[in-house]
């Protein structure tokens, strides 16, 4: 898949829907097109945060290679994949390496150890961990996929040691290759609400997704015929319970306001975007606007919505074609697909 099979170099996406900012503002907005039904629980971590030391951070502005020893990133096809940090202890990081497993650091990447040493250890070192999530409310709960390895969605409830496949037969029988997944999306308003997409056409002959509203205990098959045929790196980004986005490689941005039952294409940007990512990178700024990084056919690529309303989008002038977006406390960082970076304050 990926590099060799694409015209563009890729940039992808991970965690943090944590980066999608305040979910309450979306749900509390009166008259908003995004005033969707909120889940029964919350989507962000609000407990204590450990103050662990980071012994060997690089100097500000310089880069340090902190790849786990043995991760074989120079020899495997996709090298290092997803990277996530624990919300209750950000010094704890996880990263997935192609066919090498899940590595954990407790000191901000200074040292690493293979963590998938328990149940289904071999399965968890079988593929490309190109989508990984830590449950923001219960951080010992993790989800990961093994692209082109063991099919299914894998869940750990003990911080990555033991893993179980949690897709139900109605999903594995419909998804490509028994449950190969493109990406995981977690609802920023409800951590029990998950959506995953099939990494290939489904048994129906087109794209499909699976939705769970109980942390993966049960799943509903979602037909995605309206967004076109399956395409690489095309994923759902959950805005709230009812409202989702779908950004397709070369097919554009779509929106559903009824939990995937119907989809509308967002065609008012002059050029349809392509989104290259394996996880949703949608971010809500403090003024309520949503941002989605994308690769447009021409020109800038950062998409912007009105405040608390994802029913229309415009392209931000002078923004980059990129598909990774990360807010820090002082700026917004976008990773471009040429290996360089763009920031805005």
């Amino acid at each position, binding site marked *: 898949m990926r590099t060799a099979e694409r015209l563009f170099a890729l940039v992808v996406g991970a965690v943090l829907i944590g980066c999608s900012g305040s979910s309450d503002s979306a749900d509390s907005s009166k008259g908003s097109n995004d005033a969707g039904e909120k889940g029964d629980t919350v989507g962000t971590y609000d407990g204590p945060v450990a103050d662990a030391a980071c012994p060997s951070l690089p100097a500000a502005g310089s880069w340090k290679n902190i790849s786990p020893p043995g991760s074989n990133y120079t020899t495997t096809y*996709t090298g290092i994949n997803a990277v996530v940090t624990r919300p209750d202890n950000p*010094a704890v990081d996880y990263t997935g390496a192609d066919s090498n497993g899940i590595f954990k650091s407790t000191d901000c*990447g200074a040292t690493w150890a293979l963590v998938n040493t328990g149940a289904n250890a071999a399965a968890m070192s079988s593929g490309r961990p190109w989508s990984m999530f830590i449950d923001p409310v219960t951080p010992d709960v993790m989800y990961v996929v093994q692209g082109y390895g063991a099919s299914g969605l894998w869940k750990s409830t003990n911080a990555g040691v033991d893993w179980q496949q949690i897709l139900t037969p109605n999903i594995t029988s419909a998804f490509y290759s028994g449950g190969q997944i493109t990406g995981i999306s977690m609802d920023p308003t409800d951590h029990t609400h998950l959506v995953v997409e099939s990494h290939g056409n489904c048994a129906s002959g087109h794209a499909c997704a699976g939705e769970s509203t109980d942390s993966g205990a049960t799943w509903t098959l979602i037909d995605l015929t309206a967004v076109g045929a399956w395409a690489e790196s095309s994923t759902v980004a959950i805005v709230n319970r009812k409202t989702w986005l779908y950004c397709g490689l070369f097919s554009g941005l779509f929106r559903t306001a009824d939990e995937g039952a119907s989809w509308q294409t967002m065609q008012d940007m002059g050029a349809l975007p392509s989104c290259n990512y394996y996880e949703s990178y949608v971010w809500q700024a403090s003024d309520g606007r949503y941002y989605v990084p994308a690769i447009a056919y021409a020109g800038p690529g950062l998409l912007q919505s009105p405040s608390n309303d994802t029913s229309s989008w415009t392209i931000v*002038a002078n923004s980059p074609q990129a598909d*990774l977006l990360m807010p820090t406390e002082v700026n917004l960082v976008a990773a471009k697909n040429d290996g360089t970076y763009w920031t805005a304050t």
Partner: protein
Amino acid sequence: MTGPPAGAAAVMGNLGGSAEFMAYDKPHHALYVSTFSTGLWQTVME
């Protein structure tokens, strides 16, 4: 933080491969970027 009206190319260098995933550790101001071919990288945001 409100969204950007415009941005500029950052002086953040080039890791020799396109970024595939990013994560941010706010307490330590640490930005993590993974690439397929050049590994996992870390920087501290100023």
